């Protein structure tokens, strides 16, 4: 009995008293010689809102619409506000349903997208970064919040040294959260060791033109 109590107490302590170290920093579009892979202009950033139906957060559809803007999917503009007329909060199956219903209501084809739930997120995010795609990822904690959170953000960089979160609770050019890729990975899979990644499969915008890169 006492061992069980001790175990449960430890678990509760992890949830209640978690105070993550300041393992990230707020910066602009570049830091320590590294740059964002997905440099979405601040005018296209979206802030999280509450559902008009039940007041729950809309971080998932906010992230997904922001990523759609990066991928030039203009038909998805307005997705967050359309979904905010329904109860808030989301999970993969609900995202499938809401995207399908949104596209049906607009009379537009459903753009290709993929979702992953599980622990092995690194290689998927590496692929997204290499191909210039903006992934939407779960986010379990951050010094900005001080404890465990149920949140989704956009991963605008997952490079060899740094990873970057564009948090829809803190949109803006100077609000990017830079951290090591290992730290980003920990935040994505916190608190149960599994993460959720959503990514549009449409190509990213063309790179800036140059002659000798």
């Amino acid at each position, binding site marked *: 009995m006492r061992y069980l109590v001790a175990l*449960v107490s430890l678990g509760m302590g992890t949830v209640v008293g978690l105070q993550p170290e300041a393992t990230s920093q707020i910066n602009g579009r570049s830091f320590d010689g590294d740059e964002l892979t997905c440099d979405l202009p601040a005018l*296209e950033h979206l802030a999280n809102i509450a559902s008009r139906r039940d007041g*729950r957060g809309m971080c998932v559809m906010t992230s997904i619409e922001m990523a759609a803007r990066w991928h030039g999917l203009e038909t998805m503009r307005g997705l967050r506000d359309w979904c905010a007329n329904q109860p*808030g909060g989301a999970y993969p199956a609900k995202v499938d349903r809401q995207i399908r219903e949104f596209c049906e209501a607009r009379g537009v084809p459903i753009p290709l997208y993929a979702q992953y739930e599980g622990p092995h997120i690194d290689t998927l995010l590496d692929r997204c970064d290499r191909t210039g795609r903006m992934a939407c990822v*779960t986010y379990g904690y951050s010094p900005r919040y001080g404890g465990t959170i*149920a949140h989704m953000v956009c991963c605008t960089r997952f490079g060899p040294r740094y990873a970057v979160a564009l948090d829809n609770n803190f949109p803006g050019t100077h609000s990017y959260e830079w951290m090591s890729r290992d730290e980003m990975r920990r935040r994505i899979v916190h608190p149960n060791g599994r993460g959720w990644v959503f990514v549009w*499969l449409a190509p990213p915008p*063309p790179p800036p033109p140059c*002659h000798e890169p």
Partner: protein
Amino acid sequence: MVLLAAAICLGQTCPVSPGLVEWRTRDDDPHRVYLFVDGRQRGGYDWAADEWRDFDGQTWGRPRSFRQSIMAKPAGDFGVMREHLAAGERLSIQGQSVAESRLASPESLVPDDSTNLRLTVIGSPEQRRRVLGDLVENTDLAEACRGMFVQSYAPTDWAVADAGFVTTGSPTIYLQAANGRVLHRQDEYHGPERLAAALRRARPDYDPSKDPNRDRPLGVLSLPNWPRTVWYVLGIVACLFLLRRKR
């Protein structure tokens, strides 16, 4: 068990080893339980009223709600419903589960198209529609664009307006390598055949021998479309060969 842990953790202090813990009840007080740690009474909980009170051996503390603390949401619930996430691993494309046998790893969900060439059309809706329509209808142009990302933008779109692209063409058409290097640019559109020819020549993997020759009369033996100098050399070699045979 969880309630016990929460009771101990009220105030967010959690002793790792709380000692011998007992919950005691009284027959004449069925709605209440009393917490004893190492034989000392530490508090009591009223299920019906949802009231927890500390007890220091002499006096009872003020009542505190218990369920509220145990049912509390995370520090911030911004919209992810974790309870609905898969317990194991799940991969899907457009809502359709992908069998693990089809994909070796999660990254296979995203195609590795990082080296694709980029064809970008910048212009008015009509100008863009014309080029994109020809891309579908003209097989020559479609073949020339095979394996490329084709995208079109209005001149004011953020993706091109502030990124260094010329946006004043009618339309402007760019062919870029994946790293941004400009392989071809034209500021007018003269039809699908000329664009296809320009794109073919601009491609890094351009091979002139594969150029189609639609000017060749039908029924004539189909010869490779090699450069003229190659044919001269072949002719000389053939003549030399014939002369040697005569001797």
